[in-house]
């Protein structure tokens, strides 16, 4: 019984904490993610030549960047290929 009460209290505390975070900080996190997304676009752009087999940057720099870029390709494709309109800018 006590354990149940404790877990209920813990659950309530966690919910309240998450609610507060949602109101105060979730927007900031989303913006940070958007900034990171924009930076990823730039990285993909500068390494795109190497991904396609056409070296644009000196290979040394490309080789150093590629390991960071490759894991992001699938999410980058989703972002790039998604149709957007002005209402996207509202949220």
């Amino acid at each position, binding site marked *: 019984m006590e354990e149940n009460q404790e877990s209920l209290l813990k659950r309530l505390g*966690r*919910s309240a904490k*998450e*609610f*507060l*975070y*949602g*109101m*105060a*900080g*979730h*927007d*900031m996190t*989303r*913006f940070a*993610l*958007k*900034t*990171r*997304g924009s930076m990823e676009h730039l990285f993909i752009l500068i390494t795109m030549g190497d991904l396609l087999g056409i070296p644009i940057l000196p290979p040394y720099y490309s080789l150093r960047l590629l390991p960071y870029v490759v894991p*992001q390709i699938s*999410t*980058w494709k*989703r*972002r790039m290929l*998604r*149709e957007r*309109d*002005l*209402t*996207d*800018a*509202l*949220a």
Partner: protein
Amino acid sequence: MFTILVLILAAAGVAIGYGLYARTIDKNIVQPDPKKATPAKMYMDGVDFTPASKNVLFGYQFKSIAALGPITGPIIAVQWGWLPAIVWVILGTFFIGWVQDYGAMIMGVRRDGDTMGALSYKLISPRARNILMLFLYFYLLLIMGAFGNAVGKVLMTNPQVPFGMLTVVLMGVLAGQMTYRWKQDIILTTIITVVISFVGIWVSTQPFMSNIFSAIFGLPDSPVWFLGNTQAQVIGTLLVVIFCYLGSVLPIWSYAQPINYVSFWIVSLGVLGGILGMLIWRPGIGDFPAFTSFTTASGPLWPMLFVTIACGAISGWHSLVSTSGTARQLEKETDALPVGGGAMFLEMVFAVVAFLTATVAWGSFQGYQDAGGAGKALAVFAGGLANFLSRLGIPTSFGTAYGSVFLTIMALTIMQLCVRFMRVASAELLGDSVPVMKNVHVGTTVALLLTLLFVWVIPWLTIWAAFGAANQLMAGLALMLISLWLMSEGRKNAWALYPSIFMIVTTIAALLYLAYTSFLVKLPAATTAQASIANILIGLIALTLVVAAGFLIADGWRALRRPRVKEAAEKA
């Protein structure tokens, strides 16, 4: 006693509305499946489509939908008496408000996280999306005009307010630097910036500081400077415009976002303090009438009451947040009801608290009128909040300045977002034909000049009614989209279709009423150029919105009939 009765009524509205009506529709009609992959999981891109916990999203959704609307609407609406206002807030949320927020969210989830624009394109017609964009631009312009008017011409002209507001803005900028540049702990940043903000608000109430702003504003008898606006009003609105300009052109992380963060704490503490003071005091309604008359300064009860109280009962803005923002982050389909519906019911409670600050906090209709009445709704709220806070031992002068600062900051939060959006919209829509519109500063300046025209020329109650009508029409159209989507899935849609018809008919009636009074009643009687321009502007906007809505309704009607026509053709 009246306060407690109203709160019990609101609690009953939540219990029956959310616990029974909303849950029944969710369970029996929409039938969300917790195992079904949501767009947040299917299309996870680490940016827009990212799953988040329902508690986080509940807070996010509530913060995104609760701005000045739920505060201002009920305060203006009590001019018809307290009964119509409270009935519409509770029943509006019960039958319509949550339906739209929840419906738009679950529709977004089931339609791959599409935005309102994409949904209009697919469910109604290709031109529906373009009309919606035009509609949105006017809608945002009206938000700017309404909020700019309330803040720049009323709150900022109180000499005890501007310094507090400046302090909060500066603390926001400091919070941005501390968080992103100096990598300081967020709790330390929050404590420092919020405490200094409160000190700034206190300093702003001190005679030496308010005397400085009285001198700047030319108070107590501020002279008329421009288009019938006093020196204080012109300077107040220009200050608002400068804040919005900076919010539009500066990087979000350094200005708009940290200011929003600091202001969140200021606003939350104020609301909590107000509710606590109200519960300790528990005032009665006094001689405040339940019903005054059918026609007031804002017009006849139907349709004008239903557009005057927007966000507290139903608001088109919520459908934009629900689709573009929250639907793309839902972890499970079953989270849509607690997040979308739950946040709307919580906003109803917020609107009820605002209603109480306009009624019981003043104790009489005369008290409400003396505080500014419908014409100075935000001043009524700031004063009412100060009356509640005084029960906690907080001086009324500080409470009034505090209430005014937090309302100003709430308005600026939305206004900065609107200017940014208007800048992007003008660059997208006009950028190819007029390349200069792609320039950040030009786009922002154009948006703010239009705002100033609205703020300086159009009277407060008129612009609020126009804003409310645009907002509610947007809600009606969102409900129409939800009905079409339900029909396309072969589900019962009466719970969304009838509210949609009610909202569309009511808001078109309100817009036609505004056009009629502007062109045929007020314009012939106008004695100044300012009044003539104001009436022509409002009349034209009202008619434009009616025509745009007419196209959307015609296309929507065709879309509604599409399955029947198809069925008939198949039978033949």
